[in-house]
């Protein structure tokens, strides 16, 4: 009985994986786009460190910075691979949401399951190849050492938690589309806010103090910055444990929020749709 309960969600994960693979040529195209921004980043930061009077900027050397930014860029593709935003957006837009309500499945977990399928296909198609290439190139060009196995494994655990946090945020923001059809505009707002505050564009040591004080109470830094810091071995094991616990806390809080807000939304759907 218990197995059956999970099995029905597994079908959605499988569909998510197949969906991801269906667009593999697109994925390759977007990969090239990422390459452009990585090239810009590299030369920009090289120039920045050449122009800096000191060897380190905000506690990071050139090598630290490049390793951070490249791993952040590569991991962001995986962490942000959730499809829940579009799924809930289209379901609301096309009215499928009403049909979803009569199915004997929790809608929130169904979307999470199909997002997870996307996560796996992104991991296989983009993340793993890019990650390996990055490690090798960083090692050959800048002599940056390979990540330790323990750090790598803890990083992966942290990334999965990050992914669930991002997926919940996507779900919550996707729910806003009940008020507006501007999914593209919403996506842009969501993506830039998540990228900026999660440290995907710049580590938080560059942020002003007041901003960091605020961010400490928000889930953003658990999304990208913390996993990367684990990977680069910049956190002690106690801090890693703490980080994972905080991530887990956000997973729980956001999951409750998702279910709660979706129940509210359901009533709204019923009242307008009937």
């Amino acid at each position, binding site marked *: 009985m218990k197995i059956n309960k999970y099995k029905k969600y597994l079908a959605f994960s499988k569909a998510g994986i197949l969906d991801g693979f269906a667009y593999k040529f697109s994925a390759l195209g977007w990969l090239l786009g990422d390459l452009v921004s990585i090239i810009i980043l590299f*030369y920009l930061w090289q120039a920045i460190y050449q122009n800096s009077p000191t060897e380190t900027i905000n506690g990071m050397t050139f090598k630290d910075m490049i390793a951070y930014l490249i791993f952040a860029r590569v991991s962001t593709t995986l962490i942000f691979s959730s499809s829940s935003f579009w799924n809930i957006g289209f379901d609301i837009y096309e009215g499928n949401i009403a049909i979803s309500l009569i199915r004997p499945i929790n809608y929130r977990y169904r979307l999470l399951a199909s997002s997870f399928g996307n996560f796996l296909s992104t991991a296989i198609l983009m993340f793993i190849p890019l990650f390996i290439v990055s490690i090798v190139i960083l090692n050959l060009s800048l002599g940056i050492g390979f990540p330790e196995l323990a750090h790598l494994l803890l990083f992966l655990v942290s990334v999965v938690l990050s992914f669930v946090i991002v997926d919940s945020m996507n779900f919550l923001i996707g729910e806003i589309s009940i008020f*507006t059809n501007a999914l593209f*505009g*919403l996506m842009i707002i969501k*993506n830039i806010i998540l990228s*900026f505050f999660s440290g995907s564009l*710049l580590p938080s040591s560059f942020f002003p103090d007041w901003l960091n004080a605020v961010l400490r109470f928000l889930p953003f830094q658990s999304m990208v910055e913390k996993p990367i810091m684990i990977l680069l071995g910049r956190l002690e094991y106690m801090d890693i444990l703490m980080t994972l616990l905080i991530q887990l806390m956000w997973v729980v809080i956001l999951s409750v929020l998702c279910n709660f807000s979706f129940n509210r939304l359901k009533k709204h759907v019923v009242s307008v749709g009937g």
Partner: protein
Amino acid sequence: MRKYLRLYPYYVSRSIKARLAYRFDAFIGILGFLLENALIFSTMYLTISAIPSLNGWDINMMGFLYGFYLIPKSLDHILSDQVWQLANGGITRGILDKYLVKPINPLFQLVVEMIQLEGIGELILGIVFLALFTPLVTVEWTLMNVLALVIVAFFAMLFFFAIKLIFGSLSFWTKRSIEVMTMIYDFSNFAKYPIDIFTRAIRFVLTYILPFSVVIFLPIEALLKGGNLWLTTLYVMIASVSMLMVSLFVWSRGLKRYESAGS
């Protein structure tokens, strides 16, 4: 020509009315592009503020450059966003068919199909940046300087349009070209930085192959560093007009192919 000038305001007002039927949606779109550029600039600001200057460019000059970059980009975004639909599988969906049955230039119809209000977000931010950073950079403002910048902005806008049209028209052959179009369009991001921070190969591309730096960066460098602004304006015009000619050529070849293959 006169016919098109008369038709243009009619199409534009129709498109704006259509978009404003969903005011909140339009607002979200405008806010999205405004916020995106504001946070990208914040990233740049936090980065450049950590050092005295980037190869002689301090943060005020970089802000001025960023503001200027947004002007032609946003104008093109507002006026010709429909070109993206070519690349996004529009040709297989047959979006061109309805243009071909009317006695009006299909490219004209494609461009005027939609006024993209989202671009206003970028335009507002560009104006705000120029207003903020103009007093902070040392420029000798003359009427001629301002005139040159207006001409540069106009031709740079055409340049953005031409780049979009070339890579959107690729879809006549490949069915879908949005990924490569996005990548090429993203090359414009290079133009937000001083060109000499890049390696020789990239500089070559940005000067002769995809001359984004020629149409954005060089005029601003001439303005801020006391170069020959009118000479760079001439370069901008040459780059834009040649790119425009290439784009019209690719478009018309593609369209011929489409007409003979379809229907």
